[in-house]
């Protein structure tokens, strides 16, 4: 690719982002001249998970709109970069944005693999990353002064989900796990073991399945032969959707399906209501969270996009909003000062009172347990589930691998 073409693409993207922004607010955030601050969204805009990148951007735009596109008298210039869901592309786009567009803050990525690759660039270039995704490494073995994690910790997720299960289904003790055979799945499995032990639940077996698996009946035949009370799906995305469909074909009613970090709202919609009804799921975000910040967010999101926000959109909104709050607190847009302000910051987020761990940079926030509604209980097409519990127990310090002090 020639450098001339690169500039072309960038200009087009910038114009696109500006057009999107101005269509929402009637204001243009595109850089003109003078005092500006450059923030970015690095996410998948193309490929299978393009939906997520688009949603992160929508959320971010709402957060910026709240501030009329400026902070502390500086105009915010929002960059949008497509990482195609690939770590190498993410790193390249980020490096370009830092060197040629003076990017200082970015959201990236909805996918842990890409986000972890970007973490190293952020550290090197001293720009601030607000990441999301299922990997515990962001705040564990690879924790970095420049990276903050928005998604709940895997421990918090498993603990909240299994605690609800053990409370409401006290006679269901035997759990069989089906786990995606990559870092994300294995990390969930690890914390399933930790949480099951704490709660006195019994893990009767586990199978790892390769990523992209489309045939799950053989795992279920095997799992059911151990007569479990619960099948816990430690997998995600299209694999999880397929698994639930195929489990449904067994018509086994006395085995509860639990997905601690398995299906987002977008994927739930791919299942027919009968297939998802009764399922217990853990979620990083659900639209019904009853806090003032979330209510106003959902209302404005619905108005702007004719849809309810989900995990990706909430991440875009809340992480951006948090960064802006930290800038207020620091009275500065310098990365070093904002970083300091974020560490230990206590504030009201879409989750209610929220804090950021000063050492690991984990956002200490609740994780939500929902139960999917039966078809006739749904009030409208968005009404997929009810929040039945929430938990915010942080990862036990002895299990944290972050070396920062």
């Amino acid at each position, binding site marked *: 690719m020639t450098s001339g073409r690169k500039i072309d693409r960038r200009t087009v993207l910038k114009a696109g982002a500006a057009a999107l922004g101005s269509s929402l607010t009637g204001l243009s955030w595109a850089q003109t001249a003078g005092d500006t601050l450059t923030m970015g969204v690095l996410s998948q805009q193309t490929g*299978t998970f393009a939906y997520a990148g688009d949603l992160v951007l929508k959320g971010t735009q709402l957060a910026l709109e709240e501030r009329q596109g400026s902070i502390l008298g500086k105009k915010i210039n929002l960059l949008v970069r497509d990482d195609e869901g690939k770590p190498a592309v993410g790193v390249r786009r980020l490096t370009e944005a830092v060197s040629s567009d003076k990017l200082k803050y970015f959201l990236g990525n909805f996918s842990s693999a890409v986000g972890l690759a970007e973490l190293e660039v952020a550290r090197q270039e001293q720009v601030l990353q607000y990441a999301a995704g299922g990997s515990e490494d962001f705040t564990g073995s690879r924790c970095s002064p420049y990276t903050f994690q928005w998604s709940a910790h895997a421990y918090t997720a498993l603990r909240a989900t299994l605690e609800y299960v053990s409370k409401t289904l006290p006679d269901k003790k035997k759990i069989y796990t089906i786990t995606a*055979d990559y870092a994300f799945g294995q990390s969930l499995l690890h914390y399933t073991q930790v949480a099951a032990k704490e709660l006195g639940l019994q893990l009767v077996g586990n199978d790892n399945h390769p990523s*992209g698996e489309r045939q799950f009946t053989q795992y279920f035949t095997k799992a059911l*032969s151990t007569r479990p009370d619960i099948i816990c799906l430690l997998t995600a995305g299209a694999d999880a959707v397929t698994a639930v469909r195929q489990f449904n074909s067994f*018509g086994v009613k006395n085995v509860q399906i639990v997905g601690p970090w398995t299906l987002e709202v977008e994927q739930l919609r*791919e299942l*027919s209501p009968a297939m998802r009804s009764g399922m217990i799921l853990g979620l990083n975000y659900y639209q019904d969270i009853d806090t003032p910040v979330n209510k106003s967010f959902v209302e404005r999101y619905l108005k702007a996009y004719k849809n309810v926000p989900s995990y990706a959109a909430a991440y875009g909104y809340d992480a951006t909003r948090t960064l802006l709050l930290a800038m207020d607190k620091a009275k500065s847009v310098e990365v070093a000062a904002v970083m300091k302000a974020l560490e230990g910051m206590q504030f009201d987020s879409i989750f209610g009172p929220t804090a950021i761990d000063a050492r690991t940079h984990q956002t200490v926030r609740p994780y939500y347990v929902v139960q999917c509604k039966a078809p006739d209980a749904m009030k409208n097409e968005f009404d997929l589930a009810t929040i039945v519990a929430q938990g915010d127990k942080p990862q036990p310090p002895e299990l944290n691998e972050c070396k920062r002090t």
Partner: protein
Amino acid sequence: MVSLLAAQLLNGLAIGMIYALTAFGLSIIKGLLNVPNFAHGAFYALGAYVCFAALQLGLPFALALLAAFLVPALAGAVVERLGVARLMRGPYLYQLLFLFGVALIMEQLILIIWGTSGLSATAPEWLQGAFDLGFTYLPKYLVFNGAMAAVTIAVVWLLIERTRLGSQIRAGIDKREMAQCLGINVAGLVTTGFALGAGLAGLSGGLVLPLLGANSTMGAEMLSIAFVVLVIGGLGSLYGALAAGVLVGLIQSVSAVFAPAASTVLIYVAMVATLMIRPQGLFGER
């Protein structure tokens, strides 16, 4: 352990029949045109989406399955007539590229019509639930799936082996020029064969809808498995695909007992092993 193995064998047999059905259609087209049909996955996906649409319209499942066969078959006939047939005289690469293009066009059209997020449909009530065999549960729908695939294969077998049309198709596959000399309308035959192959792919897509749903990547996923089945069965063999399909289903299912994480890779290992030990495939002629 024995009961677990038995459970996986049953499960694998049912899955394998579907692979066999898809690969059988591919095998027919490959035989007639001597071109691997790169659009086969797209016809399979089309079948799933058509089946979904028919169910949405309130049609009974049987009619939805019929539509899942007919619409892709018709699409196949059009593709063959308008494109493949015209490229018959050119180099073989042209047909290949044409089919590749058709696959991309069909996949995008599907996305435009039905959207990017996946779709689900439930099996009719009498096929919901599972047989409790004591040592295992076997979903009724999975059994139905395997049985339907087996019946379809039997019908197509009868058609090819016992009817005049079938013997002409076989003649077209074996000795194209000779068949032409004998006054057989080979061009018409190729269209019929292509339509039949595409229809079988569509029918498999419709059959798996309650199990796999319909989504944008399903065509590509099935295409790679169908090619593996075809290679293991033998590229020159019409029926090799049947045995190989069942074999692949069994490998995938039984591996869940011993090495679940390797279930996908084992299929490809089987293909590579076949190519190394018996390159013509299990049933192919050298």
